[in-house]
């Protein structure tokens, strides 16, 4: 199978990679770019562990061909923190609220939370739960996750006001 040269724009960085057309975006992110924050759970679009943001919307990178992400704008969990010292408010809130148990679903949960808050900065609890409906936590630690996202929304809204 002939490889195709593609350009991936991930977290603002440009990568040129040669990939077989049948490779999934999540595999290229993890194996070729070394961005292993994005996880593989079910590999069929049910669990949300592989959630990334492409052109502003959350998608399952396990169901996206890498060649289809050519020159698209991608954000992965590695792109959220503004600096190595400072986490994104959603990540910070997950830490403070104990919203991480085994941690495997966490990157996907955070990316879905980011997509939710980008589109709805003041979600109700029900809207948070609906926004996470494509992300499974096998530890079943949903309540802490929902609380963390609600608190992050509040913080982000007040810092936006101050800013």
């Amino acid at each position, binding site marked *: 199978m002939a490889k195709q040269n593609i350009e991936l724009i991930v977290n603002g960085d440009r990568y040129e990679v040669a990939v077989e057309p049948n490779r999934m975006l999540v595999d290229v992110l993890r194996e070729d770019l070394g961005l292993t924050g994005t996880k593989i759970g079910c590999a069929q679009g049910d669990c949300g562990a592989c959630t990334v943001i492409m052109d502003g*919307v959350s998608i399952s990178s396990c*169901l996206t061909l890498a060649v289809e992400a*050519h020159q698209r704008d991608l954000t992965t969990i590695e792109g959220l923190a503004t600096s190595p010292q400072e986490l994104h408010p959603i990540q910070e809130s997950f830490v403070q609220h104990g919203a991480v148990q085994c941690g495997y679903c966490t990157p996907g949960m955070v990316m879905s939370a980011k*997509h939710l808050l980008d589109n709805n900065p003041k979600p109700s609890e029900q809207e948070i739960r*609906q926004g996470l409906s494509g992300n499974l936590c096998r530890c079943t630690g949903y309540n802490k996750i929902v609380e963390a996202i609600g608190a992050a929304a509040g913080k982000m809204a007040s810092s936006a006001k101050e800013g």
Partner: protein
Amino acid sequence: MAMPEFQVHQPKTVEDVLDLLGRHRSSVKLLCGGTDLLIKMRAGAQTPEHLVSLNRVAGLKTISYAGGDGLVIGGAARISQVGKTAEVRRLYPGLAHACSVMATVQIRNMGTVAGNLVNAAPSADTAAPLLAYGASLVAVERGGRRQIKLVDFFTGPGLTVLEPGEMVEAIRVPDVSPRSGSCYLRLSARSKVDIAAVGVAGFLNLDLEGKVIRCRLALGSVAPTPLRCPEAEQILEGQTPDEKLIAQAAAACVRASRPIDDLRATAAYRRAMVQVLAQRVLTQSLDMAKGGTP
């Protein structure tokens, strides 16, 4: 299971899509959201040698509404985009509901309404509301274009009248007259992520005296294809609906259904729920229609 090998083509125009479909006729599939196709391919259930992606075709994602003409949903328009469109929410609430609750956020961001129809699952959530709104598909092939009524589109589970070499360019939904109401309700065990066990969609248009001018009822997940319920529609047309008539129409919906027992529900439960959901759908549609403008 490992992904089989294939080539991906990324044309920029519908003409190029059709050329590629023709050139690789023996083993080709259209790719858009990929949320059904790529899973089937990884399971070995589909093994096309060529995938023609619609994701870079200009203009195919457009969703537009014009009074009189109705709604046009581009062949590559995402489910979530359709669900968020203001006119869809206002005038076609059954479709908006389907597009807001089916599958998951990520899948709705990736998958398309056209793909949901073309995959032709008996449970396809957008099918029942689109049947209730009297939708048609615009199918194009090299040198031709035809309009297919959605009611004539499905022929069996996973099967449609679409010919090899044809693609769905758009979905056309007629405009909604004043004094219309509509609704789609679905039941599933978890309410999110999982496939509907029963879905019922309805559309009612009333005259100035409150008589039904037009009624359409459609069911999902209770037959080999999504289907309309002509007998139930005729019970209501020309009448002033009341509780008794609504119950009779719902019973006709049950008679139109041909459900099976499967892991999602028993046939008996599905029949019972068609009755309940059809009554609720008609009651809500009637309330909305009486409210004047949809």
